[in-house]
């Protein structure tokens, strides 16, 4: 009986692939990203990302600015973790100069970087939850992000464009009571994370939308240049804080979460655990924050005190030369990378010995991660494409630079 029904021939309907243009102005693309999708019904045959809408050529602009003037350009790239970009840029220049910053400065920068790792992961968490239809985690995550905005503001005066670092130190020390506010944040965030996890981790809808979606093996992930949480979700244990530690990260007690399947769900789990580990680092860094100067006393980069300038001719000349000529960086090139919130975040600086860089290059983690989307989304549904895009945690300001 049933066999006879199946014998009906398929109607001769047209079934050409369809071209769907997603973005650049679309909330689910997490920025000004355009995805040109070839669809067969609802199945994605091919995705061609089109980027460059936010291109401002920061690297070219940097060649026309003195070394310290580049700092404001860096936080405009990844406005979701601005302090991280501020830090890695000056760390690269300091490395090229052979300049060792003070112990206090190291811990201050670690506090800044780990705080912004949470800052960036929280935004990813909220927006990704929205993409799978969960609105509540978005509100919870943004409420916590608001507290980091406040911490940014009370330290640097700006909520997003922080520009807090200078070559050889920071623009200022923490204001009074700032570390207490941060400690308060560190103590209360786990409760919110628990609440969000209870909403998502075993949620049937969330599991259905993320399990086995956008799977990539560890070997492929490395070959495609994945770094950061995306790579670790595929089971590759590569974290620069452990493998090539800077600023004494090897002396901090924290774990690096590793995924197994390399799907959207593992990328979610890895980021959730990373936030908890960042909180552990923050706690330890707050404990050990040493007293002392925050800026190095190196005449190549630091200004003499105002009293010296008023009383002493040499200091006056020193001050004048540093202000008018800027910092001179010895000739050579240097690549310095940190474990950014989105992957390996590197800065490559080339100097000819002058007051401006010959070349200043950002190794953009999101840019390389996004290039894999064509491979990940192939054969999935359009709605999965949205989830895969969200799970990569991209920021278009840094992709387009």
């Amino acid at each position, binding site marked *: 009986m049933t066999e006879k029904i199946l014998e009906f021939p398929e109607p001769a309907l047209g079934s*050409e692939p369809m071209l769907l243009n997603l973005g650049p102005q679309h909330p689910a693309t997490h920025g000004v990203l355009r995805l040109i999708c070839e669809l067969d019904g609802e199945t994605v045959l091919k995705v061609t990302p089109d980027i460059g809408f936010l291109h401002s050529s920061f690297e070219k602009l940097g060649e026309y600015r003195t070394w310290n003037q580049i700092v404001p350009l860096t936080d405009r790239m990844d406005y979701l973790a601005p302090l991280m970009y501020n830090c890695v840029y000056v760390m690269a220049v300091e490395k090229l100069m052979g300049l060792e910053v003070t112990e206090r400065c190291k811990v201050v920068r670690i506090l800044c970087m780990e705080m912004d790792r949470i800052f960036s992961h929280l935004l990813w968490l909220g927006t990704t939850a929205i993409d799978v239809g969960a609105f509540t985690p978005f509100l919870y995550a943004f409420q916590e992000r608001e507290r980091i905005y406040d911490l940014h503001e009370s330290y640097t005066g700006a909520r997003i464009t922080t520009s807090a670092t200078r070559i050889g130190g920071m623009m200022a020390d923490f204001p009074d009571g700032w570390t207490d506010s941060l400690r308060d944040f560190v103590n209360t965030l786990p409760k919110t994370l628990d609440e969000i996890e209870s909403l998502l981790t075993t949620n049937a809808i969330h599991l259905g939308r993320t399990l086995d979606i956008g799977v990539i093996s560890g070997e492929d992930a490395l070959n495609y240049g994945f770094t950061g949480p995306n790579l670790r979700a595929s089971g590759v244990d590569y974290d620069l804080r452990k493998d090539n530690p800077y600023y004494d990260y090897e002396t901090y007690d924290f774990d690096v979460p590793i995924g197994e399947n390399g799907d959207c769900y593992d990328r979610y789990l890895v980021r959730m655990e990373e936030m908890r580990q960042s909180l552990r680092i923050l706690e330890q860094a707050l404990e050990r924050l040493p007293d002392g100067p925050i800026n190095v006393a190196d005449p190549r980069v630091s200004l003499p005190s105002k009293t010296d300038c008023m009383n002493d001719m040499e200091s006056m000349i020193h001050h004048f*030369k540093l202000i008018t000529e800027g910092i001179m960086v010895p000739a050579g090139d240097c690549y*310095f990378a940190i474990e950014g919130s989105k992957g390996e975040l590197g800065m490559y600086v080339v100097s000819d010995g002058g007051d401006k860089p010959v070349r200043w290059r950002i190794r953009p983690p999101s840019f390389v991660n996004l290039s894999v989307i064509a491979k990940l989304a192939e054969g999935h549904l359009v709605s999965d494409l949205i989830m895969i895009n969200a799970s990569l945690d991209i920021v278009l300001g840094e992709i387009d630079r």
Partner: protein
Amino acid sequence: MVDESGSAFDAVEQGPQASEGDAGTPRGDEGDPSVHPSVTALQDRFGETVLHHEVQAGDQHVVFVDAARNREILEWLRDDPEQRYDLLVDVTAVDYGGGKPIQVVYQLWSVGHKRALRVKCEVPLDGLSINSVVQLWNAANWLEREVYDLFGVEFVDHPDLRRILMPQNYAEGHPLRKDFPLRGRFSRAEQTRRALSQDYRDDYTTESLEVGGTPGLAPPEPDGLTEEAEDTP
């Protein structure tokens, strides 16, 4: 801030000092900082093709290799069990200006050996072409497109060598070259006119344009209808 004003002034007067390399942590092998196992192995294996070796910023090893054999050398670095540079961190280029050759820079990292290496190839301005390494690392796909877009270096055998950050119809050249003026080559009026006259189809690949017919035209007839139409006289 300064310990002694006299010495401070001296240091400024002396100008920039060479890096001592005590800052940061080593991104390379332990032991003698001037020796890198991969560099020695490279020199043994490829001899004259390894043109030059230098240490930058204290402990970062840079190898200049013959641009014509870049893919062969990088493939060996990726596959040799003693090297295993399985992560291509970055591909970029440096233009020093003044007619000097453009340097193509490969930044490599070996996850297993926890070792970094920077490989550089120099390509002359009158023959800006180098072998693509997309066949070795897929990560090179967009990175090489970016170098092509911003420096004009052609990557031979690249599967999809198009502009990536600048518009496809950008006609002012390659922005990160030193001979490119900061504000571009065209007048502001001309730049605005070109931006407004951009065709949204420029960024579609040729293949995708054939999918579902040319955008803006009437959709093609479905299969069934076309067949019927042919049958009826």
